[in-house]
């Protein structure tokens, strides 16, 4: 008997992509995609259920279809796309709670893969140069997506405790970048004049969308339980990345940067949260050796290559 996989957040870019990839895999019988809004592009070879993971109806979907693997891609990083910070938090936190509650009740579930984020480590001057999976954050994130991710991981740990028979894989992604995806980072690097914090230069890490999807796919097919850092090899400095975009850089002292960031985010231009400002000040680098050895996959794109791939898309769209 083949496997039945449920993917949340399929109407968003990464969710849709992973659903498509899994649907093509011969070892998987059926892929069920779920989201609140219908997908913009047609999702072939899979069943789409228009449902809200915040609603208990999700338990019925899981049970009736006999789902054995849940891929939770529905953690949203961009309030602008979600329709505001309040909705985003609803979807991320309450949605994950409901989804996991439903999973706990569904005996057929054997594996859970969660897309989390490296933002759970926070960012600050007391950070070690590289984070390994077992390190605790030295500067706990207090707002936005980062805080949501911390809460989501908390629920996932709780679930893993209550259902020890389920293989739970949590993937902590660095900023995902590439030709197709739109994130706060891609918007930031597309600004004609890029603001930075004066006197600081963050160390950044990116993971190419194809590599990110490859890790999710391997997590589904191979079932490796645990928490893993996922990022492209190498590091880019923020100043260096801006030079590579060819855009202008304007450095503002920290006390001006935060109000400035807030005003442009309220103007709807870009999502600028406190956590993001901290990340752009101090940066963060992950030690990804555990994921690379466990999954047997070295990212095809290093951090600089992933960034170059994002820049290449922009040049095409300009032309």
């Amino acid at each position, binding site marked *: 008997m083949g496997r039945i996989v449920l993917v949340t957040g399929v109407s968003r870019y990464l969710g849709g992509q992973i659903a498509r990839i899994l649907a093509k895999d011969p070892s998987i019988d059926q892929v069920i995609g779920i989201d609140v809004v219908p997908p913009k592009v047609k999702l072939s070879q899979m069943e789409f259920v228009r449902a809200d993971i915040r609603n208990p109806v999700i338990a019925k979907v899981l049970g009736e279809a006999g789902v054995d693997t849940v891929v939770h891609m529905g953690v949203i990083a961009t309030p602008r796309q979600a329709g505001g910070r309040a909705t985003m938090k609803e979807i991320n936190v309450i949605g994950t709670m409901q989804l996991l509650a439903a999973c706990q009740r569904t005996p057929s579930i054997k594996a859970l893969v969660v897309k989390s984020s490296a933002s759970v480590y926070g960012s600050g*001057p*007391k*950070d*070690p*140069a*590289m984070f*390994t999976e077992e*390190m605790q954050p030295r500067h706990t994130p207090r707002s936005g997506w980062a805080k949501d991710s911390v809460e989501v991981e908390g629920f996932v740990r709780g679930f893993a405790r209550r259902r020890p028979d389920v293989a739970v894989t949590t993937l902590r992604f660095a900023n995902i970048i590439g030709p197709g995806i739109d994130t706060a980072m891609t918007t930031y690097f597309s600004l004609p004049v890029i603001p930075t*914090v*004066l*006197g*600081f*230069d963050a*160390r950044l890490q990116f993971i190419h969308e194809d590599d990110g999807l490859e890790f999710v796919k391997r997590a589904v097919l191979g079932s490796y339980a645990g928490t893993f850092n996922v990022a492209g090899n*190498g*590091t*880019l*400095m923020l*100043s*260096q*990345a*801006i*030079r*590579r975009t060819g855009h202008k850089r304007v450095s503002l*002292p*920290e006390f001006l940067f935060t109000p400035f960031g807030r005003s442009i985010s309220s103007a709807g231009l870009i999502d600028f949260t406190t956590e993001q400002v901290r990340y752009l000040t*101090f*940066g963060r*680098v992950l030690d990804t050796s555990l994921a690379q050895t466990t999954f047997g996959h070295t990212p095809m794109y290093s951090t*600089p290559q992933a960034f170059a791939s994002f820049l290449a898309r922009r040049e095409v769209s300009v032309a």
Partner: protein
Amino acid sequence: MPNAKIIPIHGDDPIVPRLVADLEPDVMARLMEFWEFVQRRLAGDYSVDDFGFDPEFNDKILMALVRPLYKSWFRVEASGLENIPDETGALVVANHSGVIALDAVMTQLALLDEHPAHRHLRMLGSDLVFQSPFLGEIARKAGHTLACHPDAERLLGDGEIVGVWPEGYKGIGKPFAERYKLQRFGRGGFVAAALRTKTPIIPTAIVGAEETYPMIANATVVARLLGLPYFPITPTFPLLGPLGFIPLPSKWFIHFGEPIHTDQFPDNAADDPMLVFDLTDQVRERIQQTLYRLLMQRTSVFG
């Protein structure tokens, strides 16, 4: 330039302006190289390591800026460089003095310029460094990182030369009267890191840095207001304003001592606090003895 005119390659080329044509070819080549360097930097076409170390920026810009200070101002004499391995990791442990950490920068330059393998010294700094604008940014680009176990062990494990100044602020912020008296050596975390990675410890003594900014008093109230560990008062600072930043031109000696090997200890030696304390004392004692010896040999402070 008497021989400039007999170089045909430039003389025949009408596009090359006369001024450039009259230049010596090696000057020309160097200008071109510099231009390419500037272009490459502005395009972001260089690489940094996971710690944010930018070797090109460090070697070509930062170190070039402090080299005159090393060569002409302090006339640093480095010895014992044969005790630093060419390729493998080692932990340089040195005394700290002189209000601002010039001694650390000079040690870094000594290893880069005078060691046959031109080694980079990767220092472990306090979190205050990485909190401070500009300072933190430059420290990262120069290859330094936060003093914490994971970073120390990662660098040593990668075969880097790591530098620690275990006296910390107690060392650089001590009054002039206590010069060359080693302060307490923290908690010995550096010894544990060396034991875990089985890398040798190089006790290093620096003479001359104490006299650069003789600190006659510490304005504790000002320090507390500014959130600094100390606020120095020297004969010239803050009395002479910015002129007070000019260090006195003392003559410096840096001696890298014989390595203390850590590979003969068992695997869990780092978890034995007694052993860690003993080794810490041994390192401290070695540095203190070397300091006394160097001071005895020194004929004059500004020699």
